[in-house]
């Protein structure tokens, strides 16, 4: 299979109160084009850090080592791409970061963004690595090959859809902006495409939803809107970071089914991040297990579930309380 992106010796450290936290340690991983790869692990294991590093959304203060390489030919060809060597040293487009986070433009564009169509893409390494000093060049070297553009090459869905939706902008406008920005359609066409996207994520009455504000929607509906925005520009890679964790079981299953369908229809690569090994296994072709910032096991879903190599993976599997597991009530004798 073709490699979509190669991660080599990726290490990410955060500074908090003068103390360094190693969030990722020497992670190497190839994401294959078209696969559904799940990243699982307990809280604090580094799952979100890995997702943010790939998407170029790491906090500016994060210290990054290693490389994320996008082999040629894997990204959308773009007339707006400058070769990396001639990238001007622009200030990081902060609006673009938060906007790209949900695939949305900022409510108030910042200087340098008016010419967004032709602006420089937020680079993975640039975003993660830009520090006050002269560390920019060093950081940039973290990304090799073509440079992915968030919102267009990568769609990102967060656990909390409200964090990526503008509360005071109609849903239709928010999605149309992504389309307008990345696909260069006219506003009329962008709105038409937004409506099609709302149909694709199976929102009832897309026409009316275009005019809705986020607070008028349920949690599950907001997540569908966030997914519509994330896939609006036809990204190669969709990253879902605990995207269904805040939803109830029934809505979670519906959203997982939706993601599975969209990924298949558009031939997207999926990075599905979850603390729930059973949920991950229901969706993924391969599963990567993170523990304390290290990638301890990676394999086909069937192998991870039925023949885990690491005792930690086995422990995670055994801790899962399934509908066929022996109830704890029975394990220690009866009561009541």
């Amino acid at each position, binding site marked *: 299979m073709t490699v979509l992106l190669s991660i080599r010796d990726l290490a990410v450290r955060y500074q908090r109160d003068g103390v360094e936290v190693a969030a990722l340690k020497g992670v190497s991983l190839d994401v294959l084009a078209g696969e559904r790869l799940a990243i699982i692990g*307990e809280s604090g294991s580094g799952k979100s850090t890995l997702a943010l590093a790939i998407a170029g959304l790491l906090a500016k203060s994060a210290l990054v080592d290693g490389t994320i390489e996008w082999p040629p030919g894997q990204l959308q060809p773009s007339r707006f791409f400058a070769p990396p060597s001639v990238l001007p040293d622009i200030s990081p487009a902060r609006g673009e970061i938060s906007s790209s986070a949900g695939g949305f433009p900022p409510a108030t564009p910042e200087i340098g963004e008016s010419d967004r169509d032709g602006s420089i893409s937020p680079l993975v390494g640039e975003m993660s690595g830009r520090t006050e000093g002269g560390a920019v060049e060093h950081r940039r070297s973290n990304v090799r090959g073509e440079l992915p553009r968030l919102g267009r090459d990568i769609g990102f869905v967060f656990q909390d859809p409200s964090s990526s939706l503008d509360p005071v902008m109609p849903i239709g406008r928010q999605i149309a902006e992504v389309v307008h920005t990345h696909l260069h359609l006219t506003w009329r066409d962008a709105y038409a495409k937004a409506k099609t996207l709302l149909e694709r994520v199976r929102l009832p009455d897309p026409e009316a939803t275009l005019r809705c504000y986020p607070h008028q929607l349920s949690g599950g509906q907001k997540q569908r809107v966030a997914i519509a925005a994330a896939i609006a520009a036809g990204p190669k890679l969709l990253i879902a970071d605990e995207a269904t964790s805040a939803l109830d079981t029934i809505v979670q299953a519906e959203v997982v089914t939706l993601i599975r369908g969209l990924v298949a229809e558009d031939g997207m690569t999926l990075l599905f991040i979850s603390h729930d090994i059973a949920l991950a296994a229901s969706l993924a072709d391969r599963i990567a297990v993170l523990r304390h910032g290290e990638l301890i096991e990676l394999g086909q879903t069937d192998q991870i579930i039925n023949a885990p190599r690491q005792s930690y993976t086995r422990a995670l599997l055994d801790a899962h309380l399934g509908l066929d597991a022996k109830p704890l009530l029975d394990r220690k004798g009866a009561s009541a």
Partner: protein
Amino acid sequence: MTVLAVSNLAKRYRRGGKPFAAVDEVSFEIGPAETLALAGPSGSGKSTIAKLVLRLIEPDAGRIDFEGGDFLALSGGSLRARRARLQMVFQDPLAAFNPRATVARVLDDPLRIHAIASRAERPLRIAALLERVGLETNLATRAIHEISGGQRQRVAIARAIATRPSLIVLDEAVSALDVSVRGQILELLLDLQRQERIAYLFISHDLGVIRAIAHRVVILDAGKIAESGDARTVIANPQSAVGKALVAATPKLVRTSQEAS
């Protein structure tokens, strides 16, 4: 004998100007040392029932009998005294406590408020409570925000059992915990139930967790009871549409070789 009996409980709110029943004609009972689970989709009324039982909100109709008396009729000192027997643990202990408070302070409050131990006795009581929930006694001096999520939930449980309750209401109490920690907390709850004969009203959206710990389950749909019964029987063979949907939506781990468990 029952610890808690709820009958024809109703609570109405307004949505978009129109009244709707968040809880509608709900009745159930819980016996000593029994765990009754409330399951249902989000918005089905689980937390509203928890708040009604705890009298954090008042019902529009219905009756709540707790330890054999009309709980809704109590007020003032008699309500306060009875409240010591009815405790709660919520999903996020950080939200429930002042994060800067020390663990000792959090455990001191119920002992003081309900006059369970004298000032001189309290440090010993606190140490005993920490040991009871599997925490080191030297954790007492740490701030709530400094300890891990699992430790915080143990502190919340220690606080709940400090007043020797007959019933604890747990609303999504293990939902935010990692699987390994979750298993340990569930074991702790079972252990406490067996030793102290505490009853639990256990709210969870996770049928796997409910099946592991609950004796009986009530499945709610839009404020009404859709079905109820023995937890394993209901989950193995749900009859209601919402029960079937919940079971179908629960992620299944299909393991063909199970050497470990």
